[in-house]
């Protein structure tokens, strides 16, 4: 079996996480923000898998399973909110959704 440095996997995970963060910060469309949150959750899961692979324990994969179920619940509620927002406001721009402001 060949070997991979543990640093490399964590660096890949952090690059993916930062890309998701840039997506959340720069996009204005709600759908793109949800996509970027998925990317960030996936990067966190990759870090867990890397930690589990380093110590050859199943706990990393168990944590990935929990992240997976959390992402599924989050995305279903988030997409229901997106549908309702589009139905009521006819836009997906997060800067126009400011009814909670006052």
């Amino acid at each position, binding site marked *: 079996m*060949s070997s991979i440095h543990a640093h*490399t996997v964590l660096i890949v995970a*952090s690059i993916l996480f930062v890309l998701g*963060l*840039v997506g959340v910060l720069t996009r204005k469309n709600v759908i793109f923000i949800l996509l970027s949150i998925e990317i960030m959750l996936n990067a966190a899961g990759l870090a867990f898998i890397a930690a*589990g692979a380093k110590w050859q324990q199943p706990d990393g*994969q*168990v944590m990935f399973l929990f992240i997976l179920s959390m992402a599924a619940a989050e*995305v279903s509620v988030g997409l*229901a909110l997106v549908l309702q927002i589009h139905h009521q406001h006819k836009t997906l721009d997060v800067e126009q959704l400011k009814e909670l402001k006052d």
Partner: protein
Amino acid sequence: MSLLFYISSIVAILATIMVITRHQPIHALLYLVVSFMAISMIFLSLGAPFSAVLEVIVYAGAIIVLFIFVVMMLNLDKETALQEKKWLQPKVWIGPSILALVLLIEMILLLLEPPSEKMLVTVVTPRQVALSLYGEYIIAVELGGFLLMTGIVGAAHIGKHTKRNLHRFLQNNH
């Protein structure tokens, strides 16, 4: 095995960059499928076959399909893409990108600080994962079940289009 890891991580990073820069939502979703496939390949090369299979089934198979359904229901067309193009000016994205890049460089420097050690890739089988999941993590599994149930109920309640049903006495006043 390690060559596989490097190739698939480069593919994942490139596909993710394409996801956050596309104007059309559907193109971003298709690039996201590529990114998830590549990350699943990374899991396989790290010795986690069960997680690789779940990544393909749940992320690329279920979550992306949900997104595609919503994009189809909202009927996002050329107009949306043009609006995205207008929103995505360099003066909008360059500031946050530089700040995030600084954070990334800090993280990489922190990760490179301790001496490098190679990790021995051994396969963690689904049997081990299942024994751990239903042994010591059983409470967390039940809590995950609660979370999914709450998600279903919440999505059904929020996503419902409420029709205003007034009593027949009140309808005359309106």
